[in-house]
């Protein structure tokens, strides 16, 4: 038997390890930033850093990233379930319904306005899911099923992050003027990312944060339904749910009802952020900004619509 070493393969493996290490580092940075300021989403930070570094990378490194992502993305999605909070049973059913109604309103308004503005169907679904459910994590999970174009994925992440941050700045100010005690409901039912809900509602104390997160958990839980629906819509021949979605739902269920070890939560969040960093590295910046203001406008319309609905509900005394 002859023992040969495939130098090329070995080289690639060496590069893969470097890239993987880089990705995990970026994920860790994102997580660390998020830990410092929960408003700065770990996924966004990692994705942003990925885009910046990716700009300086060659094609060979990008190929490495793509190879790594093929393995890393499903695992990260599966493990990200540990970061999902299931709705607290003590929440008022009326609030659950209001939250679901607002989420659906956001979903539909973003989806319709996005299509009207000329965005593609995939981008419209990504924008509407990101806005209506749970921001970047929803986009990442649904993207794994839909397989959208990378610029669509990236522009959706940036647009949702930008609009979410604008809302995060304005909501405490508006709430302080009009309904200080309803900020948790406004943040929880309309803001896309959990971190933004946390930072926005934290203006009125930790109690409001908890309440806002419990509202947010209703929307997070919707990811399971949406993942199923998207799987159903995008299955080519017969109903098929990818294994990592099933695993994601399983880990989410296990984490919610049996508790999740802190390290596992940190690891899964870091791994997911690393994956987003990898996606950021493979994205071409030109393709993203060429999409223009249309995703941003669509998401803004969703945010304005949801806010208007909330105001109307408040005025009507429903909330």
């Amino acid at each position, binding site marked *: 038997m002859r023992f040969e070493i495939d130098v090329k393969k070995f080289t690639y493996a060496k590069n893969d390890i470097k890239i993987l290490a880089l990705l995990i580092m970026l994920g860790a940075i994102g997580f660390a930033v998020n830990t410092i300021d929960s*408003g*700065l989403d770990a996924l966004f930070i990692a994705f942003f850093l990925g885009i910046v570094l990716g700009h300086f990378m060659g094609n060979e490194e990008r190929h490495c990233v793509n190879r790594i992502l093929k393995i890393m993305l499903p695992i990260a999605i599966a493990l990200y379930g540990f970061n999902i909070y299931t709705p607290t049973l003590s929440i008022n059913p009326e609030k659950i319904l209001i939250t679901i109604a607002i989420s659906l309103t956001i979903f539909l308004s973003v989806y319709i306005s996005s299509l009207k503005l000329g965005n593609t169907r995939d981008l419209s679904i990504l924008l509407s899911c990101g806005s209506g459910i749970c921001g970047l994590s929803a986009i990442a999970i649904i993207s794994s099923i839909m397989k959208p174009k990378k610029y669509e994925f990236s522009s959706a992440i*940036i647009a949702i992050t930008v609009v979410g941050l604008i809302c995060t700045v304005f909501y405490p100010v508006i709430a302080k003027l009009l309904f200080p005690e309803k900020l948790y409901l406004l943040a929880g039912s309309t803001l896309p990312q959990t971190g933004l809900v946390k930072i926005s509602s934290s203006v009125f104390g930790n109690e409001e944060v908890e309440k806002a997160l419990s509202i947010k958990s209703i929307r997070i839980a919707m990811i399971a339904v949406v993942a199923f629906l998207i799987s159903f819509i995008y299955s080519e021949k017969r109903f098929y749910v990818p294994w990592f979605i099933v695993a994601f739902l399983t880990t989410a269920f296990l984490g919610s009802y049996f508790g999740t070890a802190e390290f596992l939560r940190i690891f899964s969040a870091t791994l997911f952020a690393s994956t987003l960093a990898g996606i950021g590295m493979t994205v071409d910046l*030109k393709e993203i900004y060429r999409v223009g203001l249309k995703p941003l406008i669509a998401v803004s319309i969703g945010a304005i619509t949801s806010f208007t609905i909330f105001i109307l509900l408040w005025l009507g005394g429903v909330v």
Partner: protein
Amino acid sequence: MISRIAPILVATSSISILLTYVILSNNLPLSFLIYVIIITFGIGFFAFGSTFKHYFEIKEFLESRNLLISSKNELKAIEISVKNLIEELDKTKNSFKSILSAISELDVWIFEVEGDKIVKSMFSENILGIKDSETVGKKIEDIFVKFNPNGESEVKGKVKIVELKSSGNIFIARNIERRKNLERELALLKTVFEHSIDAIVLLDLDSKIVSWNKGAELMFGYKAEEVIGKPFTIIVPQEFHETCRKNFKKAILEGYAKDIESIRIAKNGEKIIVDQTLTSIYNEGELIGFVSIMRDITKRKEMEMKLLETCDELERKTNDLISLQRELEYLARIVETSNDAIYSVDAEGKIKSWNRTAEKLLGWKREEIIGKDSSILLPEEIKNETAVIMQRIRDGQRELRFETRRLTKGGEIISVDVTVSPLDNSGFSVILRPIADSLEKRMFRFNVERGRTYFTKDIYQAIEVLKDLKSFGYNAVIVSRRFPEEFKIDARFYWLSDQSMDFEGIYDFIATLEGWRNAVLIDLDYMLIKGKFNEAFTLIQKLRDIYYILNKGIIIVHSAVISKEGEALLRAECLEIKAKASAIPPEAFEILKLVYTKARFGEKLSIKDIMNELGVTRNTIKKRLSYLTEKGLIRVVKEGREKVIEITDEGKAIVIDAI
């Protein structure tokens, strides 16, 4: 560029200031300012992309077409690239103009259609014969009879048929009339080629068959697939190969070669005679093959042979006809100069021809008699003769010969021997030969004459006269009470008895005897015994008159018991029979006459010549010659080794006297 970037900067700056103000005025955490940075970055990012979208699209377009030049300054690179592109476009435009200029020379018309109207037109004069400016604005239906956007269309213009090609709403109409005409001609030629009864064979430069039409199949029996690729010599006999090679050489040098009446071989081995024309085929001046056109003339040749045979036959028959015509002319001359009177009568009894002898004999000139009824020539008592002749001809009788009489222009009745022959036109010809009664009379042994009635008291003399006349062809008739055996002569017999002694009946019997040469012996003894002299005398008188008028024959009245008064009366009515002293038998006189006739032309006949002339045996001739020699009428002399007959002066005198 600045005008585009400035609004972005203003907008993003405004948003940043507004957000910063909100954060600071509401005592929000300072970490929110980081959000402002991210928000500003995000909005600016998308706004930049939206604003410069077209710029990037142009750049990418240039890159994708490899038109973007490499330069550190992207904008400068785009500018130069676009300029280069415009220059290229100008060049293309010029090229396009050149192409259009070239196209204008062709029979095409380019037009653009919007809806059903023509909005642009180029070179419409080529097809429609009107200017482009007149064409624009017209509807498709105003110009096209049949509009097929991608195919053959019919136009109301100087060109009738065009082929349309469309690219979007731009159409190119191409004149295809010439092509269509060529296609029609080609189709016609193909039809001619396929259906020609002549064999048309296309050959390549190696004289191998490349095309073989139906005519060739029918002529030679080979199917096309059997001979395609095979040498032409497959249908040429070995002995004609050299001629064939020469023909090909001639066709190359002179363009064509004719091979008249050449032989070819069919599939079944049958030889066919053909007229062949071998022609060279050229394409753009280069010899590419040959075409052999062969016409089967085998049948024509056979017909020619038959025609030649027919011509020979015709020539032979023509010669026969010429001979016949000469013969006819000769015969006509003979007829005209004949010693016999000849005339012809048509189906209506009118005289159609009349010869000179007839003029002399009957006194009528040709111009007088032609067209007159032939009955004008008949005496009153035989006026129905013509009808009788025609009836006999209709009954199928081919020739009639009889003796009769004819009435001359001067009213004289003459005895003639008549030969009647039917003619094709249902008429008949008549040959009249005057009967020489005087000759006949002179040849009788007794001095009797036709038309006359004689009396004798000697029954034996009467019987001798009767025998003599019968020997000259007379019909012997006896009216007597005596038995026929007593007369020892073959004759018709009217036996008298009380019952049969009807004078009217006897008159009718004798008067209506057929023919004109009747020898009637009337034995009056029984009548006289019965005391019927007056009736008998009256009978004799009537018979004498009718026989005289009609010249029907000779009546011999005999009675041995007649009274003197009665004899005297009868002798007054009748002539006396006298025997001739030097009577020569007619058969001997015939020889004498022949010898005399020949002697007039200086000819001397031998016995053999007389035999041939008269058709009588040598012994008979010798007997008659010895009789004539004894009488001193001829003498036999030797002339060389042959005996010839000479007539004596005495013989000459008898013949002259007789004629």
